[in-house]
């Protein structure tokens, strides 16, 4: 049984870490980009960003004043049991979100879409989003918080098989160029692409590709992995850098996720996880151990399974 107090306490720590500490994989990617960038203004911007991450950690202050829209991804091992059940879990995550908004502090970004009511705590109708995933075996629960920016850099389009890779490339470039101008997408970003599914799941896949995979990670399908490399290169050859200035740092990495779709369609979504790629993860074990990390490890073989039944591989499962 996993204690609900431990869940809430851990969630609070994660909110703080996500807002303040840039994940190492993104930092490594940005340092690499800064080394090759030769646009005068773009270079200056990247250097300022690197200093900013340092300042945020030293001062324990949020790395960006727009602290995004906090959301939760919860993954549970099949044998995990939570004290108070899922309702208590959701209450704990909502409390942690509200408390951290006041504590870090974060910007209270979440308002009612029509009445603009602001509870000043990032909690409201449907906020924070809480999404779930499950893994065979294991008595642990993974808490993942992502504080993604909420305005620019994301788009969806219904493409068809006849659009082909050429059509996918066009929409990819259109999204980067449109949102990259004046730096609205806050690039260089981790670009996530969702292909297939239905409209809603296509958006979910693309967002998760951007937020729940790390820089340098590759899709296990070798042809998709090749596309990821090609798209990263293509995005960085637009001639646009940070803030939309002349440069070559647009894409820190490109991650593609797919889902089976209608036989006549090829849905596509594009998402940009910005310069402040805020994510933090903890695994809570049933014996009370908590392990913090920055890789969500969301896309396991189980999450990408193609078959009707799932047979647990012979190799041992990580479990408490």
């Amino acid at each position: 049984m996993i204690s609900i107090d431990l869940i809430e306490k851990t969630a609070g720590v994660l909110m703080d870490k996500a807002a303040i500490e840039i994940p190492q994989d993104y930092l490594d990617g940005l340092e690499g980009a800064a080394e090759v960038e030769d646009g005068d203004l773009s270079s200056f911007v990247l250097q300022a960003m690197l200093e900013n991450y340092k300042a945020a950690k030293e001062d324990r202050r949020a790395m960006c004043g727009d602290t995004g829209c906090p959301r939760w991804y919860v993954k549970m091992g099949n044998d995990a049991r939570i004290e108070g059940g899922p309702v208590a879990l959701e209450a704990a995550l909502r409390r942690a979100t509200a408390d951290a908004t006041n504590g870090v502090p974060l910007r209270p970004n979440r308002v009612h879409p029509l009445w603009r009511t602001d509870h000043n705590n990032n909690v409201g109708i449907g906020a924070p989003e809480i999404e779930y995933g499950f893994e065979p075996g294991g008595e642990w629960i993974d808490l993942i918080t992502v504080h993604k920016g909420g305005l620019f850099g994301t788009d969806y389009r219904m493409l068809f098989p006849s659009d082909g890779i050429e059509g996918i490339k066009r929409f990819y470039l259109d999204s980067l160029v449109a949102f990259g101008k004046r730096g609205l997408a806050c690039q260089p970003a981790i670009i996530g692409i969702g292909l297939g599914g239905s409209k809603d799941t296509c958006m979910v896949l693309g967002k998760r590709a951007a937020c729940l995979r790390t820089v340098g990670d590759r899709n296990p399908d070798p042809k998709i992995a090749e596309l990821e490399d090609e798209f990263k290169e293509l995005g960085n050859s637009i001639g646009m850098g940070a803030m939309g200035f002349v440069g070559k740092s647009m894409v820190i990495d490109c991650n593609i996720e797919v889902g089976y779709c209608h036989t006549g369609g090829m849905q596509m979504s594009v998402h940009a996880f910005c310069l402040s790629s805020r994510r933090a993860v903890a695994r809570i074990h049933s014996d009370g151990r908590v392990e913090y990390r920055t890789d969500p490890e969301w896309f396991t073989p189980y999450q990408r399974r193609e078959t009707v039944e799932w047979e647990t591989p012979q190799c041992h499962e990580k479990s408490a």
Partner: protein
Amino acid sequence: MGNTAMPREIRLSTTPTPEALAELRLGDIVYLDGLMYTAREGVYKRALEEKANIPMELPSESAANFHCSPAARINADGSFDLGAVTATASFRFAKWLPEWLEKSGAKLVIGKGGMSSKDYKSYFVPNGAIYLSTVGYGTGALLGRGVENVEAVHWNDELGLAQAMWVIRCNRMGPFIVASDNEGNCLFERENAKIAENLHRVYEGTRPATLKRYGETDDRSDEVIG
């Protein structure tokens, strides 16, 4: 880093003289000293549409309007804690800015992404105002370090924390980039024009979508297929 030239760095008052503003060139890096206030759609609507009295002396106290909502809290004892500040995209405020510049006397508009050269020429230049962009759009912690004190938070009850008018004392707050000049030239348009020269090459080997969308054609009788 590649072999790049460093841009010029300049200290500027938030109540700048016309001479100091005339010195600024596109792409200069600016650090600000003095009082700055945040104002965005909430403040503009309240001051301009609802005609509420602006709760500070403008522009004598401050001529620097920041398009921003800080990550901050108001403590139980009424004091303020401000962690990080980052600008929000300014183009959405074009509707109110001409009247605001005239009424507030703002000489510096600080935000994300800038405005168009048409905006600059039609109401920035006549009001003697310059646009400064934040850098990278994510340097919230660096900007936060430049905040010496939060002097007041006006209209918090009416507008909420994010839309309230935060009055901030800046001490070498920055970096900001000069994105318009006193002729109304636009840094981002200059950069866009350079990038545009290369775009046709990047798009080679791509194809337009089979199903068009309204917006790609303004003819609503168009079937948008093919």
